[in-house]
């Protein structure tokens, strides 16, 4: 189980690969891994976005992500979880979030990883502040479906 909140850009696939190397001793136990990677787009609500600042409440953020990882470990038969989330200054194409769940069966891996990303999106204390190409700055507002929308 690992949770990382970082200001550094990260390569999601190398991160997973490195983490799997570390858990190699458990390797023969798993059969399935589901991962989700969220990437910053260069548009939102019809506007061109140039950059974003991701604010968070440390260490409540890390505590919360560890808590949902533990909840997932109790709720499903999963072997391990990994959550990486970017904060600070971000530009389009940068990865924002990586979630992974290793399990013996695909159903479990899917459900656990989906649980992690939904809990993260709905409750982890992160806030996006966009800078548009036209110079305007605005906070991104949450909507009920969990997909980020912009409040002007």
């Amino acid at each position: 189980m690992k949770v990382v909140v970082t200001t550094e850009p990260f390569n999601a696939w190398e991160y997973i690969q490195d983490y799997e190397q570390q858990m190699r001793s458990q390797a023969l136990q798993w059969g399935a891994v589901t991962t989700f990677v969220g990437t910053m787009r260069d548009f939102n609500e019809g506007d061109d976005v140039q950059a974003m600042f991701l604010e968070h409440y440390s260490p409540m953020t890390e505590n919360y992500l560890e808590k949902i990882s533990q909840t997932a470990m109790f709720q499903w038969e999963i072997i391990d979880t990994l959550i990486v989330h970017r904060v600070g200054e971000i530009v389009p194409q940068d990865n924002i979030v990586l979630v992974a769940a290793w399990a013996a069966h695909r159903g479990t891996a899917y459900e656990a990883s989906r649980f992690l990303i939904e809990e993260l999106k709905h409750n982890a204390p992160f806030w996006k502040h966009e800078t548009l190409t036209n110079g305007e700055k605005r906070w991104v507002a949450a909507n009920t479906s969990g997909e980020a929308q912009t409040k002007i």
Partner: protein
Amino acid sequence: MTVTVKFFASLREKVGTGSVQLNASTPLTVAQAWSQACNETPLPSHVLMAVNMEYVEPTTVLHDGDEVAFFPPVTGG
């Protein structure tokens, strides 16, 4: 008792500060801490709140030294 009140994101900008110290002679609830910190305005319904970095309800009672945080709906991921 003394508590630290923190504000994040758009709420920090609206309140005009990220952190204030509150002093009170009697125990405060979270909602009362908001009012005392925010010029006696009522706690808006969409605002989220945490005490010592755990989510709580407006009726939660604060203790000396607590850190209470108020913030808008989250937009991570």
